[in-house]
């Protein structure tokens, strides 16, 4: 269902009622014709954040470029659920080839969820860095921080420089 949302995100007015459980109109939190935008942005330090403005959550991941330059990940340190972070704060670390590399919050907010699978399967970060190897979800406190980060095109250029 999430994928359907992403593909549909670029269209203008879209009925969101299909995403909600079939319920009475009064239980719908949003007006039927509201548009939900899912934005993906990148940082200089090779993190990515996928921001869904209907949930207010930004899913933080490393990029494919980051995982390939790290090597095989053996350990991932994640922030505590509930911690309040500022953009740029250290929120964890990734260990590979005996090197521990800090990861930073791409946006400010509260950590709502962490990917517990990374405890037992740190290799997910290499296999699917921008998918199953997601790091944590932050409830974004300043949505404008998201749009100020690099777009995919700008990030690709950054990687080549």
């Amino acid at each position: 269902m999430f994928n359907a949302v992403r593909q549909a995100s670029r269209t203008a007015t879209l009925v969101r009622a299909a995403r909600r459980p079939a319920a009475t109109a009064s239980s719908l939190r949003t007006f039927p014709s509201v548009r939900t935008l899912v934005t993906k942005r990148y940082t200089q330090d090779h993190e990515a954040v996928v921001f869904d403005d209907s949930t207010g959550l930004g899913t933080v991941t490393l990029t494919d470029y980051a995982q390939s330059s790290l090597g095989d990940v053996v350990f991932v340190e994640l922030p505590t659920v509930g911690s309040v972070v500022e953009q740029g704060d250290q929120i964890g670390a990734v260990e590979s080839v005996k090197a521990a590399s800090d990861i930073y919050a791409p946006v400010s907010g509260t950590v709502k969820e962490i990917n517990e699978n990374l405890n037992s399967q740190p290799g997910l970060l290499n296999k699917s860095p921008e998918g199953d190897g997601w790091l944590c979800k932050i409830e974004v406190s300043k949505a404008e921080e998201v749009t100020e980060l690099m777009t995919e095109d700008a990030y690709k250029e950054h990687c080549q420089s």
Partner: protein
Amino acid sequence: MPLPPILYHFFRSPLPYARTLALQERIHALQLALRRSQSHQDILLLLEHRPVYTTGRRQIASSPEVLAEEQRLTEIGADFVTTQRGGQITYHGPGQLIGYPLIDLGRTTPTIGIRDYICKMQTVLRRYLSESHGIVSVPSDNTGVFLDAHTKIASIGVQVRHRLTTHGFGLNITPEIYPWFDQIVACGLADVRQTSIAAVSTGKTSENVTVPGEIDGLVGRWGKVFERDMEKLDVAREGELAEMIRVLEQEAQYAGPWSRTPDSASP
């Protein structure tokens, strides 16, 4: 535009670990601040430590296992410090040459990735061992330098924050480290034993191998592999960096003796 030289300094007396870690942190903070104006320097510190066991980031300082190890190992005359580097428990002490390259991986274009950085570090050590001592090492899936699957001569453990590195490598030079290593399972590798340059050098007899004797050769190889000029840091000069180093050097000289061998466990 040519890159600035890497400034290196070799400490004459074995240094206490915690104070050296504090120095690394202060240099890191200084580099981070100066980088905004691109006036930060890359540094290579070379030294020995007083006997110490250190753990990496995966070991939690307050966990019962770590606390138990801390008690056991401090009782035999070593320090014990938990750190944020990669890698697991290891030993450092006199007879082992420590290198702390404190460099900005983002100085070159493209940025040096972590895997590349570790690979280059291993290359420096392997080439040095081969060219200066005729010691042949083998490639390994494990990080570090191995003479065969069960024999290790150098360890690596690094931390990277904002592309600035801290911690580094430990190269075994003389046999005085062995009884200390025997007290632990170093780096989590149970079937691996340590060796030293003195034990396996084909160029020099064991008595003639000393830590200070290895410095120039290693520094030269670092410069070649990383394609940088290496410049001896002038500790008498002005500036925060030189002062921090002078202070630690002096402290170490006045610190007094350390345990030469592990103290026997009480009966």
